[in-house]
């Protein structure tokens, strides 16, 4: 089903999406917020620019955006997949619990912050371009991959501040400087590279990139050295 979103209020658009069938194409999208909020079992293609909180609490749908997305894409998303052909704004993947987000271009500040995981449920955020500052802040689980394509530096400042779980893979020949003390940086192991390759393959299939051009580089992995980064700070009173 095609929905022409031109001039439509978000409430109206989201209501139509909820009542429509499984396959939905939204044309002329222009900043409507909360598209796909909490939705399960749908496949949505968006032509244009969706507004903030695209796919918040997403519970198992697929969203493909031909264009850029704005802030808080996939906020607290639980399951499903979001593919952004352009770039995505700040706090992309905030507190993700599961599912996948693939961004062909860049992401803003604080992407992937507070991502979680529990046993087999582990979210993935793949960024084709570069990430702004505070990538993976407070990260408690999950996987972030930054490919840094067409960029000299994959991440901004303060990457992994307060990180206490999960992993961040960066495609670069030298790891970024000034990482927080509680982060260990290593060259990606063979096992790591297998994980990376799986997602790079999917990334290339979706966005028509060439896998060999991406895997032909070093990858570094950032991991926290403690599950309790702030334990020493307190004294019982």
């Amino acid at each position, binding site marked *: 089903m095609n929905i022409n979103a031109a001039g439509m209020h978000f409430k109206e658009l989201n209501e139509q999406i909820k009542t429509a069938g499984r396959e939905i194409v939204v044309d002329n999208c222009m900043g409507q917020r*909360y598209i796909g*909020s909490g939705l399960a079992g749908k496949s949505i293609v968006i032509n244009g620019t969706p507004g903030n909180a695209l796919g918040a609490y997403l519970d198992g749908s697929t969203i493909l955006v031909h264009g850029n997305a704005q802030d808080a894409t996939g906020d607290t998303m639980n399951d499903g997949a979001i593919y952004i052909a352009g770039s995505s704004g700040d706090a992309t993947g905030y507190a993700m619990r599961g599912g996948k987000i693939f961004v062909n271009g860049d992401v803003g500040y604080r992407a992937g912050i507070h991502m979680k995981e529990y046993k087999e449920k582990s979210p993935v955020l793949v960024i084709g371009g570069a990430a702004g500052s505070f990538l993976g802040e407070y990260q408690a689980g999950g996987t972030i991959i930054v490919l840094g394509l067409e960029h000299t530096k994959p991440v901004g400042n303060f990457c992994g501040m307060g990180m206490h779980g999960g992993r961040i893979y960066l495609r670069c020949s030298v790891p970024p400087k000034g990482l927080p003390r509680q982060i260990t940086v290593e060259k990606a192991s063979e096992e790591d590279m297998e994980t990376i390759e799986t997602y790079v393959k999917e990334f290339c299939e979706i966005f028509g990139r060439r896998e060999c051009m991406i895997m032909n580089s070093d990858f570094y992995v950032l991991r926290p050295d403690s599950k*309790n980064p*702030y334990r020493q700070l307190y004294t019982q009173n």
Partner: protein
Amino acid sequence: MAINFLYPDYEVVRDQTKCIACRVCERQCANGVHMLDETLNLMKSDDAKCVNCHRCVSLCPTRALKIVKTDHTFKENANWTGETIKEVYRQAATGGVLLSSMGNPKPYPVYWDKLLINASQVTNPSIDPLREPMETRVYLGKKPGAIQRDQNGEIICNLTPQLELDVPVMFSAMSYGSISYNAHESLARAARALNTLYNTGEGGLHEDFYEYSANTIVQVASGRFGVHKDYLNAGAAIEIKMGQGAKPGIGGHLPGQKIVGDVSRTRMIPEGSDAISPAPHHDIYSIEDLRQLVYSLKEATDYQKPVIVKIAAVHNVAAIASGVARSGADIIAIDGFRGGTGAAPTRIRDNVGIPIELALASVDQRLRDEGIRNNVSIVVGGSIRNSADVVKAVALGADAVYIATGALLALGCHLCRSCQAGKCNWGIATQEPELVKRLNPDIGSERLVNLIHAWQHEIKEMMGGMGINSIEALKGNRLMLRGIGLNEKELGILGVKYAGE
């Protein structure tokens, strides 16, 4: 070994003529205070480990035990009190931030105790609640500004979702993790029996408690622990936690030792990992951003749930509340600086925020002045200690109140203020299975129901005395209050006259 400068705060006094060395105290104390000297067959105690929780005292079959505050003292000094000196010692020894629990214990003014309630005499009759109907039911949520009718003159129902409470008292947010499974079960069952609500806090909701959905407020905080579609739908309302009275402006930090088993699963972080809630929501830097979270939650739940925004009472609370009332939120919860906590930095707890009485009065007045009071209901907490506090809060403008410390006391808490240690001997603020099972939810929920029923009777008595038979008619009715021992400024902010005026 370094010298320990700290003398124990409490002393365990054991009457050896009564003690039968049955070792109950030893088994009951998770802090390891009591031990048997087998050669002498005498119970001994290590005062330094005692937190004064009274578990041993309550269970001693011969009443051989009592705990006293030590009379050991520093040289008297009004500026450098013993407590202040000890805190310096603690920090000098460890380099750590002082961590405390439960509400602000400092002797700041308690304005509830400086407000007096009116009663009818001669000129208008008081009402006897034992014989006449007395309404304590309230509905929380946005109230429409006008009645709308269709072309046939029929009323169009434009009422957004409301919460119905038989008594204007709810149990405020305490997460599964900070308190135990049995404590949550007690609160959930009591909320159902009382037709009111309890609040999950930010630790998610154990699947066993989804059945209490109609009496549950689910919380969404900056860490987003346990937040997913089913969780949001499991609540009768959703609360966005922006702040907490015990620690305004800072986040939460549940230590990894409490992240075990079901707590780990419910929060969705690995066992042993710290659960860190950042100080801000990193997608909220303005009222416009708050509006975004409010509406993303409403969209995810098809506009079926009222959204509560909880803020701490801070200096500009009236202006902040005005913004919140325009954000699309249905209810504002304000938490005063005496509100409890499972753990907060001592300095924040004791020095940041303002009293709830002043915050409530100024928020209610501000929203009235701006003509937006009916956009939102107001719920206040931190701290409401008894039914008179409830009546005074309603008269100052609250729609309902939140209680938590009072509820924990009903469950057996003795306010030893050691929740952060995770070794609660009463089975409340702990995740150790041996301790958790000490709290029986059958008894716990019954005690909570008893407490609120008792308060409800007292509220009705006080309302009846004022000649008011519906709590809605008391709301914001500040003429029913008079101040005592207050200065002009305080009376002005509270909007009440002085006793005798």
